[in-house]
């Protein structure tokens, strides 16, 4: 998730500024760190004893975001979940840079759930104090915080060496984790100095490096810290947690959204060997067994009667019909209006009118939702790939009847999330805590959602319907009117009071054409249908659909104008230099100015979009054979500010392209009479290796801006770039996702 209007507050300070962490701020951090982590650091008058060597003060230098151990390892305490996006590499890189550490000594561990210390600073402008990973904000909000953390630790190591060696701190150099004084020839490792560094006063100010001197940040060859564990089966995910006496649980949930348990008969389930308990929880009925297989078998025999009086019983066919009516109706909220779009469109000679359909989409992370809970009278421990620790802690506490501070959250690597593990009501965490409570804490319990639970479980990218009318007026200016029809993600959640302004949910309509192009006459409006299907942010959120209709329509306008699609876009990007820069780079690397051999179903298309503070442009080359679309090559240019770990940036662009192509070619959740039609990967198809483009090239726009989003922005341009390429190849307009070329050909005639 991401909230466009907080962008201005996240990391726009410029990388070159020598931001300083004041002593006051540092004390605030350290005081809150608690549990002995930092107390030694702050005790007054605890400087090293005169004449004492490093060994006399052996111990760690422990601070909220970095810990240097006597064994010379440097551990970065990561407040964000690693779900593949690379924070376990990128955040340590920031610390290592300012610390002048060597990469080999870097380690990483998850922070406990603790606000305000580990809150996501990107949400401060909203007044939200939340520890969460979302909106592609992890690097952006940690940038200055972790640079300061690294620089502070470095300064304390230097101060310790200066004191022990009796030399001026200014004469001490640090390189590759060695602290050295050339005059006396003395040197020491971080590990040797850590204990005495911990007794140094915390510097009132630290100076950050000139980005021109960075050697770790921006290093093309920096290996991921988690690659080995993830290539040997050793990486621990929540599903791998094994506690003594632990039981496995699955939950039977209502077959329709909004249903409730009326009654249930557990007789047969309890007779299944291995089943130990069957308990009702607020969201369904849990079957608990000695292993997953027995729990699943038990659930298959469970008989539940559901109260569906408040359940959603419509199917997507009916919903789309209602959405279409709303798209043509008068009732809507104005999102943005400039000039007079109606008048401009009325007088235009040639108009483009188009309607777009976007289905519900499941996130389908490879690790299905899983969490482990261990409950004792005064404590509840949770293990999960938590994406929203603050909410998870509160939800678990509420479920078991403890205070949030009595719930400890162990954030493990998440086997993908794409937004799914951050739910305002912490659905699966709440479930596992409820099961622990209902079974009296007799044993630790691990809840696993099966793939069927995941695909049918809701929290989808909202179904959307867009209606657009656009034209180029006599003066050459573009006029555009767009109605967006789609459920709100935020309304009804605790985020609504903070983020929904004048009734408009920015996660429904952000990234629109009025924001991203220079348009003279524009009117964007939104209708919010009331539907009982739970929806959620899905990798790149509203940009998944807003970028598509925008970039397809702009392309069609270019065609009307008889202009090249890149040149036409550039003519509308005068006030958007970063868009223009990324677009030019992608076009140049793709050889856009050279003739492209069409025929034999070949075509190429382009799209550009800003999301999460970053701009991504992509050129897609496709081959259409019959009704099959094959994407041969994608050239991607990204402006994400300073690329902290360029290889991770490239990986995330590849990932966004693949995840976006999955939705473009296959992704679709439908409902019939309120029942989800798909259940597993045979019906909810996702991109496989044979559909991944053979060639993906990623180019990073050189930048001195602070880092912006990377995990999501690679996704929005791919579907429209491919649709535009298919239109170039075949003349067929793809306006419904996932692409169905046969149906679109039919619609064309």
């Amino acid at each position: 998730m991401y909230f466009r209007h907080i962008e201005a507050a996240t990391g726009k300070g410029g990388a070159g500024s020598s931001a300083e962490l004041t002593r006051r701020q540092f004390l605030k951090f350290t005081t809150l760190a608690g549990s002995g982590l930092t107390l030694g650091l702050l005790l007054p008058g605890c400087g090293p004893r005169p004449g004492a060597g490093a060994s006399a003060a052996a111990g760690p230098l422990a601070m909220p975001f970095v810990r240097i151990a006597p064994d010379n390892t440097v551990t970065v305490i990561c407040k964000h979940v690693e779900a593949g996006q690379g924070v376990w590499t990128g955040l340590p890189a920031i610390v290592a840079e300012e610390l002048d550490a060597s990469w080999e000594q870097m380690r990483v561990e998850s922070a406990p759930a603790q606000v305000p210390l580990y809150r996501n600073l990107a949400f401060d402008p909203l007044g939200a104090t939340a520890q969460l990973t979302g909106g592609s904000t992890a690097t952006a909000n940690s940038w200055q915080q972790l640079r300061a953390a690294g620089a502070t630790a470095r300064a304390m190591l230097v101060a310790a060496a200066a004191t022990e060696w009796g030399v001026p701190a200014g004469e001490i150099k640090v390189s590759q984790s060695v602290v050295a004084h050339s005059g006396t020839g003395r040197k020491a490792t971080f590990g040797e100095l850590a204990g005495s560094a911990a007794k140094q006063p915390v510097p009132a100010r630290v100076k950050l490096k000139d980005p021109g001197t960075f050697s770790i940040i921006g290093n093309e060859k920096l290996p991921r810290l988690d690659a080995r564990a993830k290539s040997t089966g050793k990486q621990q995910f929540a599903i791998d947690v094994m506690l003594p006496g632990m039981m496995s649980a699955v939950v039977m949930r209502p077959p329709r959204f909004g249903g409730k348990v009326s009654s249930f008969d557990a007789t047969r389930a309890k007779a299944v060997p291995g089943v130990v308990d069957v308990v009702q929880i607020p969201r369904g009925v849990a079957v608990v067994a000695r292993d997953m297989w027995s729990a699943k078998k038990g659930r298959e025999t469970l008989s539940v009667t559901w109260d569906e009086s408040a359940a959603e019983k419509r199917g997507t066919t009916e919903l789309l019909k209602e959405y279409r009516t709303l798209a043509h109706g008068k009732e809507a909220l104005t999102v943005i209006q400039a000039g007079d779009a109606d008048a401009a469109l009325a007088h235009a000679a040639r108009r483009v009118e188009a309607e777009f359909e976007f289905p519900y989409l499941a996130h389908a992370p490879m690790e299905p939702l899983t969490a482990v809970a261990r409950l004792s009278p005064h404590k509840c421990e949770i293990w999960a790939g938590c994406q929203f620790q603050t909410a998870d802690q509160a939800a678990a506490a509420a479920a078991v009847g403890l205070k949030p501070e009595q719930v400890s959250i162990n954030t493990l690597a998440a086997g993908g999330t794409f937004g799914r593990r951050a739910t305002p009501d912490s659905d699966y965490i709440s479930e596992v805590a409820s099961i622990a409570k209902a079974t009296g804490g007799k044993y630790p319990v691990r809840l696993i959602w099966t793939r069927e639970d995941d695909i049918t479980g809701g929290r989808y990218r909202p179904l959307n319907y867009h209606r657009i009318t656009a034209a180029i007026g006599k003066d050459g200016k573009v006029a555009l009117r767009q109605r967006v029809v789609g459920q709100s993600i935020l309304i009804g959640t605790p985020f609504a009071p903070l983020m929904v302004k004048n009734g408009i949910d920015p996660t429904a309509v952000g990234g629109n054409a009025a924001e991203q192009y220079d348009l003279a006459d524009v009117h964007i409006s939104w209708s919010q249908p009331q539907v009982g299907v739970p929806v959620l942010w899905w990798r790149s959120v509203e940009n998944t659909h807003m970028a598509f209709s925008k970039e397809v329509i702009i392309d069609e306008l270019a065609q009307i104008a008889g202009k090249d699609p890149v040149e036409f876009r550039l003519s509308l990007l005068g006030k958007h230099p970063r868009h223009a820069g990324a677009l030019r780079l992608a076009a140049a690397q793709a050889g856009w100015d050279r003739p492209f051999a069409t025929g034999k179903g070949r075509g190429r298309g382009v799209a550009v979009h800003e999301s999460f503070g970053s701009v991504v442009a992509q050129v897609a080359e496709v081959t259409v054979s019959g009704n099959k679309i094959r994407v041969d090559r994608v050239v991607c240019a990204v402006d994400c500010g300073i690329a902290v770990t360029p290889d991770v940036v490239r990986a995330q662009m590849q990932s966004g392209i693949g995840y976006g192509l999955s939705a473009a070619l296959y992704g679709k959740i439908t409902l019939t009479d309120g029942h989800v039609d798909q259940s597993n990967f045979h019906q909810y198809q996702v991109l496989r290796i044979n559909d991944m483009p053979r060639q993906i090239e990623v180019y990073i726009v050189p930048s001195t801006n602070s880092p912006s989003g990377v995990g999501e922005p690679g996704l929005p341009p791919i579907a429209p770039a491919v649709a535009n390429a298919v239109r170039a190849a075949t003349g067929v307009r793809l306006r419904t996702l996932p692409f169905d070329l046969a149906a679109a050909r039919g619609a064309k005639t």
Partner: protein
Amino acid sequence: MSIKLTVNGETRELDIDPDMPLLWAIRDHLQLTGTKFGCGMALCGACTVHIDGKATRSCVTPVSAVQGRQVTTIEGLSTPAGRAVQGSWIGLDVPQCGYCQSGQIMSAAALLAANPGPSDADIDSAMAGNICRCATYVRIRSAIHQAAQQLSAGGRPAQG
């Protein structure tokens, strides 16, 4: 019922349902958690293990069917192809979330054992049963090619 399983060269006797998929026996009863659950229907490949050297989806293979056969999981992967694949996986930073990668590596190791010089099309065909939602597919292709080259050069894998 007592089931005798030989996993990574070690034979264990387990008192479990003979219909239990090998996946859950390995994970819940042998505590070998490198093999992952992804779909339960042999649709995603996260649970891939080797049975007598052949890549097999453990989520649909009942334990009764593998008695007397050699099961290898990611923890026990030690063939030259397996080590080369793991080395190139680490060297090229293939994993993102990493959850599917045990299955990817087991499939890739079996592919290289059968076909030491696969083309892109061979790779796509052999690996199409393994889903990666992070879409690390471009690097998976590169890593398999790199491991193949390393094996054909007779070189020792850098790591593994």
